[in-house]
């Protein structure tokens, strides 16, 4: 049955249904409500878990690292500089191949300090070796968290579910929360063959030398590449069992048939993009969209297949690698080049620090890209050029 729930509450319900035994976190906007709801479930006896308020995000990540290493299912959530404070531990969790699930309530990174949403936080840890899934709606957040534990435990890799702070976490919208029995059937209890056990002493995370470190990294990379198939398979299996969802697995196309200009984007922005595509199609423009649900592993093959007949591509992304440009745009260009494709890619950065990507802004991006003569390496949508600070004397 669908209910109208705040996104953070819906996410907490999904986490509860996955029966984590240890939850550790440190509060940071806009993640806070997720942990508050989970704390309430624990206090009310609706969730049998140890909830640990850590002294920092570094501590919180370390607690769940230890919990998973000990063979328990665990959960944490963070955002922005909180996620960055976890960075060292995120690499360790991934390198130790620990199947943890966390939520990143996507938020901008300071300075200037800004509590609002963009993807700079999770994009900054894209190389840590976690699977990263970006969701469009709160229903997808719920369903993806349940899938994420299956993916993590099947691949022995950590999974970060990235949901736009405020745009999703603080929005009330209809969500179906599955029954416990159905989730139990989909997600059996966590069995971890490598769990630390005093009865069988062993070392987890011992040192590595130049003669084998490279092999560990190569093995991790291969495991990540193989995880793509599991991400796609879990989405299919979930939608078969629960009778909804089917979020495209790795990528979700919208109106790609006959589309000459295709927008590639991530997260909740896709909702407005769909509305704009409908409107432009009604005006006779051959436009479509492709949502990257899975950013790590980067599904280059599926993306290039989906974009095979696109004449022009425009990437709209909410993070930037200062001095290089759009992160997704760069990776997409590399994938196209590798596949021998030469469609121009207009790289657009927008929505930083919570700037609303309105339908009007999205439509303008589409129209400029469709005009076909303005493909830019990196430009900014909805930029007030007069307000850009300059270091040069005028």
């Amino acid at each position, binding site marked *: 049955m669908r209910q109208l729930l705040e996104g953070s509450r819906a996410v907490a319900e999904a986490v509860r249904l996955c029966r984590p035994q240890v939850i550790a976190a440190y509060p940071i906007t806009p993640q806070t409500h997720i942990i508050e709801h989970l704390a309430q479930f624990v206090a009310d006896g609706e969730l049998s878990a140890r909830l640990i308020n850590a002294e920092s995000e570094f501590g919180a990540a370390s607690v769940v690292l230890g919990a998973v290493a000990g063979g328990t299912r665990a959960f944490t959530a963070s955002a922005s500089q909180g996620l960055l404070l976890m960075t060292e531990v995120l690499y360790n969790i991934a390198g130790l191949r620990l199947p943890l699930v966390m939520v990143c309530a996507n938020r901008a990174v300071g300075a200037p300090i800004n509590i609002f949403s963009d993807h700079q936080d999770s994009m900054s840890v894209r190389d840590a070796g976690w699977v990263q899934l970006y969701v469009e709606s709160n229903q*997808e957040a719920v369903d993806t968290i349940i899938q994420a534990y299956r993916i993590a435990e099947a691949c022995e890799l950590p999974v970060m579910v990235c949901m736009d702070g405020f745009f999703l976490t603080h929005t009330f919208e209809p969500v179906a929360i599955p029954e416990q029995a159905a989730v139990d059937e989909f997600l059996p209890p966590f069995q971890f063959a490598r769990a630390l056990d005093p009865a069988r002493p062993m070392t987890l995370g011992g040192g590595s030398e130049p003669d084998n470190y490279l092999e560990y990294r190569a093995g991790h990379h291969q495991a990540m590449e193989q995880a793509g198939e599991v991400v796609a398979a879990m989405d299919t299996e979930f939608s078969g069992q629960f009778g909804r969802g089917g979020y495209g697995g790795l990528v979700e196309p919208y109106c790609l048939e006959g589309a000459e200009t295709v927008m590639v984007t991530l997260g909740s922005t896709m909702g*407005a993009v769909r509305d704009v595509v*409908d409107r432009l199609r009604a005006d006779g423009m051959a436009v479509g969209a492709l949502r990257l649900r899975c950013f790590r592993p980067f599904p280059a093959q599926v993306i290039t297949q989906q974009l095979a007949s696109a004449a022009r591509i425009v990437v709209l992304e909410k993070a930037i690698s200062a001095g290089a440009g759009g992160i997704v745009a760069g990776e997409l260009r590399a994938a196209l080049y590798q596949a021998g494709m030469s469609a121009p890619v207009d790289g657009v950065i927008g929505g930083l620090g919570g700037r609303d990507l309105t339908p009007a802004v999205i439509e303008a991006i589409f129209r400029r890209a469709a005009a076909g003569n303005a493909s830019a390496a990196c430009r900014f949508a909805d930029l007030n050029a007069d307000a850009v600070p300059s270091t040069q004397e005028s």
Partner: protein
Amino acid sequence: MYEEKGNAANNVQHEIRFHGRGGQGAVSAAALLALAAFEDGFEAQAFPRFGSERRGAPLEAYVRISSLPIRAHNQVYSPDAVVIQDSTLLHSEPVLQGLKADGWIILNSEQPPADSAATALRWIVVPATRISEQLLGRPLPNTVLLGALAAATGWVGLKALEQVIASHLSSKGEKVVKANIEALHAGYQAVAPQQEQAS
């Protein structure tokens, strides 16, 4: 994941913007309205204008009510109605910005502003603070204004509002629930005669 169809013009599509001050419960009011519309069988969405929450600071919250799945997560820029919880905001905040030419204004005030007759905008003025002080013992205009909105626009049913108020406030006890439902009805009744005169 969604039904792949456009938003037809003859379908129900309402966007409502709430203006209040931190502590007056604009966010709760928006959530209650969305819950009631959802109860009535519509798709609904509610969210605050994203910002740091401070008591007394101006804030906004948004509601979308639709007969189709709501896909966009944008803020509301061209509302069909605004609900103004505090009349001092009329002079300090752009509360009417983007409001449709025939849009509704549900204003908590003892009297309409002097220039309210000059446009096609539909002003509904309710002394919600006074009514709530009488019925709830505290200046909490939310439920009165929701009743007024329901009476003026007909976008949401009184029964559905009663249900969601009862369930939302159940932890505060039967007395609080009863008083708020009275406040809801008082808001509705305050507007119904204005509506009859107008029609």
